[in-house]
């Protein structure tokens, strides 16, 4: 090693420690402080809390299978990743990572279509693709307006509410594109269901 080897070694170490302090601690803590001050609920996970009970996170999907609830994207539930404070398993989910051109996917789609057609006998139309596919996170909290509309007759029949009433709830929890341009219109499934249950 050249004569400047030692100098370079010490400077490297020094500058790395400086950046651990600046970017690791000061930046992370300052951003945490400002976020907690300005956007308290958002920075803490957008938890839906009503009368002290935490009903879910508005950004993370739950699985719904009751006829009286709106169903979301297909989930790959796992209960091994996390436990709650008492050690009982808690729900989590991930993506399928299946090829959309593979035989396994083909069989799964057939099976899901069959189940949806049986559960929604009043629907003559095709099944919206959102309802037969898993999302990227496995925890996508939303579905397309087409997928929500598809389920309205079933929910109406199961809950005894009118289709108009349910459509109003769906509209209330539908968000459009950002500035009318970016992203896609979507319906928050958990919020619709909490509203159907009279909680929201």
């Amino acid at each position, binding site marked *: 090693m*050249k004569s400047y080897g030692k100098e370079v*070694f010490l*400077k*490297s*170490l*020094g*500058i*790395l420690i*400086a*950046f651990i302090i*600046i970017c*690791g601690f000061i*930046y*992370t803590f300052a*951003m*945490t402080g400002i*976020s*907690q001050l*300005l*956007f308290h609920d958002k*920075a*803490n996970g957008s*938890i839906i809390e009503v009368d002290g009970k*935490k009903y*879910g*996170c508005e950004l993370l999907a739950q*699985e*719904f*299978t009751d006829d009286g*609830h709106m169903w979301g994207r297909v989930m790959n539930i796992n209960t091994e990743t996390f436990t*709650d404070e008492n050690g009982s*398993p808690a*729900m*989590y989910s991930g*993506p399928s990572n*299946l*090829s*959309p*051109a*593979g*035989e396994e996917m083909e069989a799964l789609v*057939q099976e899901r*279509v069959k189940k949806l057609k049986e559960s929604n006998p009043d629907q003559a139309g095709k099944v*919206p*693709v*959102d309802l*037969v*596919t898993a*999302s*990227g996170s496995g925890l996508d*909290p939303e579905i397309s*307006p*087409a997928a929500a509309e598809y389920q309205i007759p079933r929910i109406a029949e199961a809950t005894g509410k009118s289709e108009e009433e349910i459509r109003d709830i769906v509209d209330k929890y539908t968000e459009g594109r*950002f500035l009318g*341009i*970016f*992203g896609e*219109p*979507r319906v928050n499934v958990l919020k619709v269901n*909490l509203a159907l249950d009279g909680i929201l």
Partner: protein
Amino acid sequence: MESILQYVLYLVILVALAIPLGGYIAKVMKGDKVFLSCICRPCERLIYKVLRVDEKEEMTWKKYALSTVLFSGIGLVIFFAIEMLQQILPLNPEKLPGLSWHLAFNTAASFVTNTNWQAYSGESALSYFTQATCLTVWNFVSAATGIAVLFVLIRGFVRKKADTLGSFWVDLTRTVVYILLPLSVVVTLVLVSQGVVQNLKPYETVSLVESFETEDGTEVTEQTVPMGPAASQIAIKQLGTNGGGFFGVNSAFPLENPTPLSNLFEMLSILLIPVSLCFTFGKAVKDKRQGYAIFVAMAIMLVAALGIIGYNEQQATPQLSAGGQVNLTTVDQAGGNMEGKETRFGIATSATWAAFTTAASNGSVNSMHDSYTPIGGMITMLQMQLGEVIFGGVGCGLYGMLAFAIMTVFIAGLMVGRTPEYLGKKIEPFEMKMAVLVCLATPVGILVGSGIAAVWPGVADSLNNPGAHGFAEMLYAYSSAGGNNGSAFAGFNANTPFLNVTIGLVMLFVRFLPMLATIAIAGSLAKKKTVATSAGTLSTCNGMFVFLLIFIVLLIGALSFLPALALGPIAEFFQMIG
């Protein structure tokens, strides 16, 4: 129709932001006063004072090269140590244990090389301490190292009969303090306003509306909501072409990327600095057209890739249509291949991200590339295999492309029988040899790595899909490492000792060999005098040069990877339609 508008606007906004930023970076590189100087300059001087750095120091290319390597080497060791010891370190509310040695090595190599391959899953493996002091810090400094090396190459072209190329400490500090930190602060606050978490709390549990039973009959009534200082890390992971997610599924995770607005910021951040640097380059060599030529060559390839991915994803596959029973149209829904894609992003926003993240060596994802159509997925892979020079990683993408430009003038020079020159400097055998090292490191890394893995016993167990798609998963993993990208066909289980070690070694090889070769080119160019342009000089800023440059990039990529791609995505495509 809405999709086309989205595609066009994403590109237009990107370029509109990159042009002024390119000028700003050129000033920072020279040490000129900029509008943030009143805040940044005192911080910069404090760092120099404490560390006794001489701001006026000038390094030879050898000292500069040694500095970059030692800095990264020391970083690798400290990173590895913190991961192994996170159990006894603070800020670990989930009491996560230390990592296995091979996962710790892989993750450290991955972040030090600006790859950010995720063999780990953030929320279940890394403490907040590790996330902040290792991942976040290396998101900043590995990006800054890439930009510093680009500055050195630019100085090599600009300086005449010079022995020195600037100071690594100064380039590194200025890049972090003037460019990366201010941008990260802005992006962090936008992300938190949209719902990205930013706290130091333990994970939250919330009740399920519908409880369910596991197979062994245990009732599950709760759901875990992971927490942590995510937004601050995500901001720099996007801006520094790092891409390693705070959470396992990266920016597809709703708490990492909750809305189309958060997505707009994260997605533009992927390419913002790589695009800007083209304009910085033009400004710094005092001939803006040189920067535009490189930009146009890169942009043409990016738009082509984006078009192919977007078209194929919207078309979906016959397997998804269940004989016409599934609605794949765009009426009241995004339609198309929604497997592995989030509803809020649909096809256009997912496809744009996929094109951006694999063009830049970012590697973050907002949809699962493993579930892309065969041709859509192939294009994401091909962009990495071309050596990450379609904008590429911050700094390293452009110096990689400039090595291709050197090859191009050399080959063109041979055709007309003249000594090749680029930007007024003669290109001689030494520069040419080094440029070949830069251009061939990626193909060699990918093909050797995946070649060994293909015959290694046990690797097949890591595949999530059978057949051609399974082979594509493995090829993608080594392409991602070989391009220092970091995205994955994520069904592939990469957390095994063999894969962690080999993928880690490929990442180190393709990061440091081209980096050292680039600094060597810069050292050699700086010593030369400038040659005057004459009638016989090949112009490097006209349409012909752009065409030749694209041709050379595609030629090397196609020759290297066509056989491998034929066994993977191309074979799967024919099975799909057959």
